[in-house]
């Protein structure tokens, strides 16, 4: 197995990741890539608290994660990689060869427009997702496994009213 999901989710580790994806995919580890969390023992303890004992969480800064991606791809057990924003995932796509990107949760913030129930984007973030595709990644939006994977063009064209 390998990294079975490369997810952008501003909530990082939470119920959808641990239960929604983690259980059906039999995920054994989560790679959390976030520069702030990587420097904070308190934040790391918080995220460890959110996963069952049999699931390991590995924390990396963006630069550090790039160096470890090949090793994670060779792991025997399935894992999930999660970033809190598009820019971090972009770095992994550009330098680390991530080829499938799941937009799992980018939530409301001033200046963002709602595209799906769980995806709100600024114009710059729309461009950033297009850039992921230009770099070779297949980008889809899907919050949980039972939902349909929404292709990038459809995601960007979609508008929802909260």
């Amino acid at each position, binding site marked *: 197995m390998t990294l079975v999901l490369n997810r952008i989710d501003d909530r990082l580790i939470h*119920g959808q990741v641990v239960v929604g994806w983690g259980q059906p995919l039999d995920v054994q580890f989560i790679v959390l890539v976030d520069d702030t969390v990587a420097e904070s023992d308190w934040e790391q303890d918080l995220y460890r608290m*959110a996963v069952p004992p049999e699931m390991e969480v590995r924390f990396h800064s963006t630069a550090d994660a790039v160096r470890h991606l090949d090793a994670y791809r060779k792991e025997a057990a399935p894992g999930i990689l999660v970033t809190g924003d598009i820019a971090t995932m972009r770095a992994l796509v550009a330098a680390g060869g991530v080829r499938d990107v799941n937009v799992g949760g980018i*939530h409301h913030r001033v200046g963002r427009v709602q595209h799906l129930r769980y995806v709100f984007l600024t114009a710059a973030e729309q461009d950033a997702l297009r850039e992921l595709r230009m770099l070779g990644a297949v980008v889809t939006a899907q919050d949980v496994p039972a939902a349909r994977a929404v292709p990038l063009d459809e995601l960007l064209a979609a508008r929802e009213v909260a």
Partner: protein
Amino acid sequence: MSESGPVATPRALVAGHAEFAAGLVSAVELICGRGELLVPIRVTGLCGADIEELLKRRLVETGARVIFTDLQAGSCTMAARRVQREVAGVVLVAGANLPMLLDFAMTNEPDLAVAATSAAEKGRTSVNVFGGST
């Protein structure tokens, strides 16, 4: 909420996925008429930082000092843990269920930490399996 009597001071926030909080609080109101002691928090569409801000704001607005959440791995629990770092005296109970909230709503215990601990125990012991092969 109750149709008569004085408005009670909220004692706790209830936060969770989708309509979890509103559903449980409405059930407490239906069963014992004390739903006004609990403030349902809906977080759909909010990022973690906004959930944290919402919890802090509602704690200040209501005077509540206990937060019940649905799932230990959930973003409400994560946000509440962060709130605890900034707001002294906040008690967090993760894994809330209806028996737990009923116990909390019905008690006259003035110490909210004691009340929350008692309610958590009630919630734990109220889960039973009937039938099945074992």
